């Protein structure tokens, strides 16, 4: 098995709007090693979902992938014609979405929707597809699979629907599963079950790119984390290292703004300011406007993503200093 399932290099997605070109994804570099769950965390609008769509090849008009390369198991897929790209979707890379309520077709039985994914990629009869679907339903722990097979989406709970989505995504044994906020619409107990399921899938050999704004979800599930801000990766490292010793001021801000259950009733900390408008990004570091330690360099130049400690990268001029503190 290859060491790296997904490698994204300098990926750029641009949108031509009336007011100018914006780059929701601005030179993103990501790696998903085999058998790992890699998290992408950031505020809404930071470009994490757009990154996922770009990897799938599903960026909607007027958005366009305008730069960078995506490698799947070492093979470049960015230049592939749409037909070949389509063949990869659902078989080599699949994706599940945030809202299990709306991501299933309301007028088609859920079993049939999963069958469709099988039949699109493997030549088989209806009966064989159904058998495969039922097996997959068992694997993702859907109770009474035969009965659920004939249900319509509205007859299932949110958790069950997300399990159906996962079954659909996993049925062709893809190398990579992209989960875009898979638990955001679910309540916490169901969230825990779904995350456990993702871990089970990882242990069975599928790598997962988990996108979330929820630090708790990321900390609990991911092996590695990338932090995204205004279209760029600002920090990347192994989960434990990153949470223990965050190097980028944005990551520190995020971690500080997590509500804790400790007694004392202290005021919840927030990051001052708002996410900059992608049309008017600051000239230097995109976080400079909100950074308490912003220096002269930060306002002038865009920092590179540099390795500060082994396996721990940060896009900040002051990262070394922070690392020592």
């Amino acid at each position, binding site marked *: 098995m290859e060491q790296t399932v997904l490698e994204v290099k300098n990926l750029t997605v641009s949108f031509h709007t009336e007011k100018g070109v914006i780059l929701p994804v601005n030179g993103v570099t990501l790696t998903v090693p085999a058998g790992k769950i890699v998290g992408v965390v950031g505020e809404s609008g930071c470009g994490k979902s757009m990154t996922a769509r770009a990897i799938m090849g599903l960026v909607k008009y007027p958005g366009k992938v305008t730069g960078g390369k995506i490698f799947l198991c070492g093979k470049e897929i960015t230049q592939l014609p749409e037909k070949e790209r389509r063949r990869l*979707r659902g078989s080599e890379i699949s994706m599940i979405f945030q*809202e299990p309520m709306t991501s299933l077709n*309301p007028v088609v039985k859920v079993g049939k929707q999963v069958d*469709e994914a099988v039949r*699109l990629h493997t030549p088989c009869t209806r009966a064989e597809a159904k058998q495969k679907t039922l097996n997959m339903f068992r694997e993702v722990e859907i109770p009474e699979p035969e009965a659920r097979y004939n249900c319509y989406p509205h007859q299932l709970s949110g958790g069950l629907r997300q399990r159906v989505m996962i079954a659909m*995504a996993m049925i062709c044994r893809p190398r990579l599963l992209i989960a875009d906020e898979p638990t955001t619409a679910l309540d916490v107990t169901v969230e825990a079950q779904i995350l456990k399921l993702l871990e089970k899938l990882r242990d069975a050999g599928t790598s997962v790119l988990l996108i979330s704004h929820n630090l708790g979800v990321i900390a609990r599930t991911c092996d590695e984390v990338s932090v995204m801000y205004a279209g760029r990766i600002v920090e990347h490292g192994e989960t434990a290292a990153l949470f223990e010793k965050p190097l980028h001021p944005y990551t520190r801000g995020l971690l500080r703004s997590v509500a804790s259950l400790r007694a004392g009733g202290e005021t919840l900390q927030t990051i001052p300011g708002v996410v900059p408008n992608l049309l008017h990004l600051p000239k230097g570091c995109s976080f400079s406007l909100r950074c308490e330690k912003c220096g002269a360099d930060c306002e002038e130049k865009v920092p590179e993503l540099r390795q500060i400690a082994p396996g721990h990268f940060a896009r900040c001029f002051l990262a070394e200093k922070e690392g020592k503190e």
Partner: protein
Amino acid sequence: MKHTLLQRLIQAVIVLTGVALLTFVMLRIVPGNPIETMMGEHANVETIQRMTAEMGLDQPLHVQFFKYVASAFRGDFGTSYSLGKPVKQLLNSAFANTLTLALFAALFAWIVGIGCGIFSALRKNHLSDRLFMGFSLLGISLPVFMAAMLLQYVFAFRLHWVPISGVDSWKGFILPAIALGWNSAGQVAQMTRTSLLETMQEEYIDTARAKGRGPAGVVVLHALRNAMLPVMTMMTIQLSGLLSGAVITETVFSINGVGRLMVQAISGRDIPLLQGTSLLATAVVIIGSLLADCLYAVLDPRIRKEG
């Protein structure tokens, strides 16, 4: 499902009886005596009285109504005052024409409307989209008689492709069907386009693409069935509208249909005929909406009830 259907059938009977009662009462309380209208100004009082008694119009209202309902159940809707023929027979022949016209018009409206709608949605903001939408807007805003005369002028008078009026052969139905259906086609096209564009933004469309469906499969298998739900409702309502008689089209093309019969009945104060035509129109609308409900339940599992 069966339960709902039964409920709707009972409702249908109640509505039909209600309409019968309403038209019955209204036709009798409006001022003016139908016999006088029928006999003309010079009829003497005795003759009018004799005729009134003969037709049972001197009896109390409730007696008249129950007599009417009782004979209606036996299939007898009385005899037309002005045409002297049984209403049932008149309705039968008129409805055959109306039905043919309505079906032709609906077929035109649906095929052209849905086709244009889908095409426009898929090629949003392209030249063809603008053209199709302009064409459908024209259909919606152009009065039927204008469209009818325009078509007559071009295709019958100038090009001689089809007869200018009358329905002696199926060719006679072409122009009236287009004139009548153009409006519906425009509405269907606009709605199909909007609905399809909206549906294409749904997340399950992304899901379908994410599992590797190609663009055609996504539209046909996932978007269209959902997008057609509101269009379907509109189409059944349109169909019942078309079936209950197209007064203007039938007049312009001299087709003996229900709409023309109704106009005749009104101007001649022909009570049995007017009752007959309005009952028929009501029945058609009720059946149409019943059909729409059934169709909706077939297409959309969310509104199917258990049991």
